[in-house]
């Protein structure tokens, strides 16, 4: 009896998981899922996982305070062993994640795969797109260099000019309608806590719905 079998037996006696594992492994999936256009969502999720791992590593050195933020990124880039590689991986995986999400969305759009019965998953998907953008822009702000500061100012201040709720929404998330040192700390909180929690929850719902409904196909 192999070690794996023993381990599964041990777990099965306590948790009764054997049939679940077997069912999951034997589940039949559509053959056309091999078509590369169907892997874009998975690529986005993989990039997200890379973001989680590299993000945790970066958070050990990053200081979310306007007085120290830039210096801590400089230290990560030039002094921490492998710091530049981890930071660059975080940077590229973020870009790949956004590109994959956008292409995934285009695939769904051009096939009309958002139609009944998948309306709800389209809604969740659009929410995930917005969260991914917010991930990107809040992370860009954390760099706190001249270019990212300018871009962040526009993204934060432009919604405030919206009629009715604009300024209120900005205040809820950032405390004030201005870019100050504290804005950076609040964006950091969004980037490492609020958005990851929301995104992860929606991803699970997204995947469960795909599993329940199958992938849309005209083939």
């Amino acid at each position, binding site marked *: 009896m192999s070690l794996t079998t023993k381990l599964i037996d041990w777990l099965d006696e306590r948790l009764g998981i054997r049939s679940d594992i077997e069912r999951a492994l034997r589940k039949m999936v559509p053959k056309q899922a091999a078509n590369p256009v169907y892997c874009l969502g998975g690529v986005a999720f993989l990039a997200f996982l890379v973001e989680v791992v590299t993000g945790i590593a970066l958070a050990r050195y990053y200081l979310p305070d306007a007085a120290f933020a830039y210096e801590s990124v400089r230290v990560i880039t030039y002094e921490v062993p492998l710091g530049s590689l981890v930071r660059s991986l975080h940077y590229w995986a973020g870009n790949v994640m956004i590109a994959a999400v956008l292409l995934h969305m285009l695939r769904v759009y051009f096939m009309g795969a958002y*139609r009944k019965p998948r*309306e709800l998953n389209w*809604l969740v998907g659009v929410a995930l797109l917005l969260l991914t953008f917010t991930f990107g822009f809040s992370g860009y702000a954390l760099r706190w260099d001249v270019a990212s500061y*300018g871009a962040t100012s526009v993204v934060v201040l432009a919604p405030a000019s919206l009629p009715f709720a604009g300024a209120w929404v900005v205040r809820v998330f950032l405390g004030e309608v201005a*870019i100050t040192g504290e804005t950076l700390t609040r964006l950091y909180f969004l980037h490492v806590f609020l958005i990851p929690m929301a995104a992860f929850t929606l991803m699970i719902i997204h995947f469960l719905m795909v599993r329940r409904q199958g992938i849309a196909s005209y083939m």
Partner: protein
Amino acid sequence: MKKQELRIPFFPYQVVRELGVASFVLGVLLLLAAYFPAPLGEEAKVGEITAIEPQWYLSPLFGFLAFWDSNISPNQSMAVALPVVILLVILLLPFIDRGEEEAEHPLKRRAWSIAGIAFVLLLLYLAYYAYTADITSYAELLT
């Protein structure tokens, strides 16, 4: 789900394929990170906007705001409201397009495909506009 599909077991076929794609993507990420490290410019000073470099995925939005500002009207609230309206249309797409089939070949839904391509081209043009227009002066409006 309605039609009879060709099906294969998840393990090992799909698993092996997924692992292949995952290894490829991770390899590409490592190469990109090694040869094109993440940039880092000069430190920002609070309250001073000297440069604006939007990320590529937000540049159509920046381009639109700048285009509106210099060609249509200095009234910013309209320029910000319009993308929100477009976003709502995208969000409600499944309730606007009530086609019977659960999916169709893009060539069979020509009107939607043409609209989609036109929208993507518009976004590309606006991104181009953001990179070529002087958007730094636009930021002064905000501060």
